[in-house]
């Protein structure tokens, strides 16, 4: 009821509720006192539409008691639970509280299940089928929305199976990514690089780093302008995991491949976010998930492209 600025609607709703219950009680009491004349054929003597007659079938008294029970129940309910306008009820129940309690109870129930995993290093986790089954379900529910069911990502969402890492692929780093999330920021560099033609040259130089198809003349012209990029991506273009600057030499193009895609990124920059999971998942869940994600590119038998 916090949606209303005045107290009027609260009083209005509470009033209608209580008056309705009272009206039910009065109706019961009045009909209990009422007597009707029953004619000799056990009808009430009322006739409609020529021959439609109303039989006199009195309501069993136990049924009346059920009505009374519902009225008593309604009043007790309204005392205990929120129902009368703004009144929160004696039990202070709310759906948010209940949800929280349920999550807490479920996590408590899961604790012994995770207890076995909390001490395990990630490589042990990745080899444990039960941990991986749990990890897979956690991944499907929390990660697959962006990274895909097969963890191979799509444009803008990194592939987690290819051993190429923006922020580092060590278990500690993966866990840090999960707990705190990551913000990838590439500022618009068009002006710093120079004229649009310079940007095009740099783009070709960047393509040449991974041996992708490029214009070698423009690439050699662009090399000199790459200095603006080197602060983050390094002089050799191999990136910097401490900054989350991608390796430009490995032929992996998170935000699109080709000259146009690179020009557009240089000119407009890019902000990409991995949301933090610490609020959503328990520590034990994040630990298992770390093992799962690490295992995607490190498990024996997993093909590395």
């Amino acid at each position: 009821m916090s949606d209303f600025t005045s107290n009027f609607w609260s009083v209005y709703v509470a009033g209608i509720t209580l008056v309705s219950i009272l009206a039910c009680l009065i109706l019961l009491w009045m009909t209990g006192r009422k007597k009707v004349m029953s004619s000799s054929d056990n009808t009430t003597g009322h006739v409609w539409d020529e021959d439609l007659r109303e039989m006199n079938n009195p309501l069993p008294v136990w049924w009346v008691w059920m009505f009374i029970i519902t009225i008593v129940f309604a009043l007790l309910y309204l005392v205990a639970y929120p129902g009368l306008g703004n009144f929160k009820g004696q039990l202070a129940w709310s759906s948010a509280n209940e949800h929280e309690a349920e999550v807490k109870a479920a996590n408590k129930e899961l604790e012994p299940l995770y207890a076995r995993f909390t001490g395990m290093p990630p490589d042990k986790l990745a080899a444990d089928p039960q941990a991986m089954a749990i990890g897979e379900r956690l991944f499907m529910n929390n990660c697959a929305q962006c990274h895909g069911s097969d963890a191979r990502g799509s444009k803008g969402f990194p592939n987690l199976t290819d051993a190429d890492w923006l922020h580092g692929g060590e278990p500690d780093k993966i866990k840090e990514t999960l707990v705190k999330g990551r913000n990838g920021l590439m500022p618009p560099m068009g002006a710093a690089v120079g004229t649009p033609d310079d940007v095009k040259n740099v783009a070709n130089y960047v393509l040449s780093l991974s041996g992708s198809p490029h214009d070698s003349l423009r690439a050699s012209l662009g090399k000199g302008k790459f200095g603006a990029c080197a602060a983050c991506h390094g002089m050799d273009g191999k990136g910097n995991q401490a900054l989350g600057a991608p390796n430009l030499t490995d032929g992996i193009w998170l935000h699109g491949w080709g000259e146009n895609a690179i020009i557009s990124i240089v000119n407009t920059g890019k902000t990409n976010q991995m949301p933090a999971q610490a609020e959503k998942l328990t520590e034990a869940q994040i630990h298992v998930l770390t093992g799962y994600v690490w295992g995607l590119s490190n498990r024996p038998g997993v093909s590395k492209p």
Partner: protein
Amino acid sequence: MSPTPTPKVVPIQPAAEQAVEVSLYASQAKIYPRSVTGVFAQWRWAVVAMTQLVFYGLPWLEWGQRQAVLFDLASRRFYIFGFVLYPQDFIYLTGILVISALSLFLFTAVAGRLWCGYACPQTVYTEIFLWIERHVEGDRSARMRLDKADMSLEKLVKKWTKHFLWIGVAIWTGFTFVGYFTPIKELGMEFFQARMGSWEIFWVFFYGFATYGNAGFMREQVCKYMCPYARFQSAMFDKDTMIVSYDVARGEPRGPRSKSVDYKAKGLGECVDCTLCVQVCPTGIDIRNGLQYECIGCGACADVCDTVMEKIGYPKGLVRYTTQNGLTNGWGRDQLLRRVLRPRVLVYTTILVALCIAMLVSLVVRVPFKVDVVRDRATLSRIVEGGKLENVYRLQVMNATEVSQTYRIKVSGLPGLVVASEPEVQVDAAQSRWMVVRLHLPYGAVSGGSHPIHFEIGTVGGSAHISEKSVFLVPR
């Protein structure tokens, strides 16, 4: 010899002689049904024994390593003898319910409220509770006397014994009911060690309480005021439906008589007005007033009237199963039976038989696993190394057998379409598993857009096979 001596003529439901003032509420008089023997009573006890043997016995049956019939709600598996059913098999429950409803229609059209009189749990448990009551407190007149009597040690002992036994049966019933949803042997251990779960406790005692209340106290009130079936069953009646009827032409005018007197000369019918038919009636009506909505068709009045007729040497069947047409036209057994095969009955029978056959066939040819194909929610289509287009799917494979199975995934529908991920999956007994499947298509093999494809899933080394539709997306 006069008919069985009765203390008093039971007042028949008050169609008041003149207009009187009545209340809109009425307390219900307690009914004390007299015990009855006869062919219909025997039938009822046979059905009680049969239904309860099934109800109380079924959860204790074993099938391999598990309970033969178990509805495991927590893990959503329904075990019925050799079958493992998933919630996706809900259609079978629908089928059973439709068959049950049509059976009810059929039986009712042929012979009235057979269900109510013989098989309904309300009747069956009332019968069991009445049997206990009769053995503890005595028959009708003894029970009436006991209820009227002042409180005494004897009354206290009898009442307590009765309620003790009732509660025993009720809790056992509740326990059995819960035993269909949680393994009954473990439940038994938990019960005796007082460590049942809170929901188990709730359901054992709630179901037990409902049994105790309905069979011990509410009884005919349930049929008269609560039961919806009772109301709509009359829609299945016609003039050729067998109902328990009093032969008015033969019985009236009713009246007591000495056996030595020629009643015909006195102008009397064959009803000796012993009122036994009223005393045995579990809903407290007088069948001689004709067909009434309270009548559950149990045939107790027919049974008791036959014993009276036999004693005084009149032909049986003054109260009997017959049809309204039969009664008016004085038809015999053969003529009644001939009218059973009328269009309404034939239509019900045809639909019922067709449904039963359809149900059986679908159970026999049922593929013992299921597959759901879900396209990946994140990725529409992507280009991977080797110039191939990749689409990602998630397949839920549900094993409906009780052994571990390996399934092989194949795909068809587009030239060059192949499964790029592991094509085999192993699923444990009665488990389901999600697997990720990646499909590859050579770039440029087909035009851009959505292309229908089929997943073919089969057991390795078996013949069971399922085909599921999906689409492969190619960027334009």
